[in-house]
């Protein structure tokens, strides 16, 4: 009855958010089916306000369909959010696991290293990295991963530090199993719950950061994205509010849903931490 799965699906907000994310993912995957033409292509007169029957979300200064850009932009946002989180998890889990398992000097060195990365304001760090590597989808993914792994590594380290003292770990050590095997098969699976929750929230943060970078003109010039759409619409605020309004709403909905799913997962995976009823 109280399995994590049933706890999660008992949380109405989280389930609705998950369904919402599924729809966004489907739209992103089917972008080329829904809007077969390139989102950069002119489809009508410029500055058309949103209208039923016409262009649902209006057109921009070059007569491009905002809705088409939105659907194609979802790909970029989701792709960058997922891939950069995956890379950040690899780095963060690796460093955190080694620091927490071995402790001592290794831990000290790795944690000072992590602290340095954590001190630098992440958006500014990401801006510098993308600016120097040149704006492309790869450099954006690298930049977001480089600035987001420290929180994972601190979390994983804390988990490993408590778990390595457990009896089942000590028994594996007595058996003479190599350290990497103990970390991978004995400790890591038990440390995954908080990592999964953090990962969900990291995807949300990554999407926000990508939109910020694209807004500043550091997006991949070949790919349309929500942040780019808002940035391009900045100077047209008075003439065409819809150009910046809808991409912003798309970001909010996606990030909000990811946060709600993350909270649902957190409550489901750590039922002990769930705020007690009075």
């Amino acid at each position, binding site marked *: 009855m109280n399995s994590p799965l049933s706890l999660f699906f008992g949380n109405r907000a989280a389930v609705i958010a998950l369904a919402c994310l599924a729809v966004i993912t489907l739209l992103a995957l089917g972008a080329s089916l829904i809007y077969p033409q390139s989102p950069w292509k002119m489809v009508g007169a410029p500055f058309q306000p949103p209208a039923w029957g016409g262009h649902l979300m209006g057109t921009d200064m070059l007569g491009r369909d905002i809705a088409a850009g939105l659907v194609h932009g979802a790909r970029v946002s989701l792709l960058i959010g997922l891939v950069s989180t995956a890379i950040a998890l690899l780095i963060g889990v690796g460093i955190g696991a080694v620091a927490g398992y071995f402790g001592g000097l290794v831990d000290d060195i790795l944690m*000072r290293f992590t*602290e*340095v990365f*954590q*001190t*630098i*304001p*992440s*958006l*500014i*760090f990401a*801006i*510098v*990295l993308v*600016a*120097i*590597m040149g704006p492309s989808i790869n450099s954006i993914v690298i930049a977001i991963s480089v600035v987001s792994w420290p929180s994972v590594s601190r979390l994983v380290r804390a988990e490993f530090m408590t778990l390595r003292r457990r009896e089942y770990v000590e028994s594996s050590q007595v058996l003479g199993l190599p350290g990497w095997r103990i970390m991978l098969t004995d400790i890591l699976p038990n440390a995954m719950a908080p990592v999964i929750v953090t990962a969900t929230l990291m995807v*949300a943060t990554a999407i*926000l950061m990508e*939109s*910020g970078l694209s*807004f*500043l*003109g*550091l997006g991949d010039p070949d790919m349309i994205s929500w*942040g780019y759409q*808002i940035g391009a*619409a*900045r100077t047209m*605020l*008075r003439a065409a*509010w819809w150009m*910046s*309004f809808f*991409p*912003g709403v798309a*970001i*909010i909905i996606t*990030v*909000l849903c990811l*946060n*709600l799913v993350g909270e649902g997962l957190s409550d489901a995976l750590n039922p002990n931490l769930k*705020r*007690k009823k*009075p």
Partner: protein
Amino acid sequence: MNRLSYLIGRLVKGVFVILAIGVLAFLVIRLVPGDPVAVIAGKSGAVDAEYMDNLRQKLGLDQPLVVQLGIFLKGLVQGDLGQSYRQGAPVSAIILERLPATLLLTLSASAISILLGVLAGAMAARRRGTWADSAIGTLALLFYATPLFWMGLMAILLFSLVLGWFPAFGMVSADMRYEGIRHVLDVLHHLIMPMTILGLFYMAVYARLTRASMLEVSEMDFVRTARAKGLPESYITRRHILRNALLPIITFAGIQAGHLIGGTVLIETVFGWPGIGRLAFDSLLQRDYPVLLGIFIVTSAMVVIFNILTDLLYTLVDPRIEVNK
């Protein structure tokens, strides 16, 4: 160990962190394939060969990497962040000139977000389960998911372009030369929108944190004792619950400092606020990498200083904390 030696210890550690960040900045620009001088000088082609030769010599690029790093760090310790070739002035001077505007914006945004966030969170905790609680919770979730720059644009659309209440751009009215109190009021008038937008995100964070923290504290034994003594509920909330619930908020303010300073790049760009964030955007457009790297180091140093201050504040507020830990 007393507070003074603790403070010195923290400062020394802070200096090392800043030096490490300097090394990182040095490596970032050199790990990129290609001629670092070309990277530093920009790819625009607007730079002549003589300048590049000078730069090469100044950076000591003919020397081994370790020697180069030494030169760079020596400059850093002396407060020399290099030259901006676009503006023909030392990077440190350019940044210093923009620093007050950014400090005004970030400090006022922090103040307003902590103040209103704690108030909203305390209200939600006291009226737990009522419509006020859910309204605050929903708003907090919404602000937490909204991109700062988008909220800024929408605020400009509504409050500047439609309603005409606040100026959309800059820190002072360009066509007026106000003096004294009129000048202060003019700056405040320009400050309200960027400060509020920057603050809203953190207000959401603080509201959620305060609520959770207060609910946790309110279940502790000393609160039950206070209730058993028959103290009025509002007194218990203020003196017993809120005071203790504020501790995690101080920690969090320190953690969020870097995030807040990063956010100024977006907010200052949207509102044309003449601070470091806007400078970062301009240097980005002009490929003025020395300035960008200078901002990288200076903003990191700001975070280090802010963290030292919150640590100190923590030991003052909570006497249980051992300073030598």
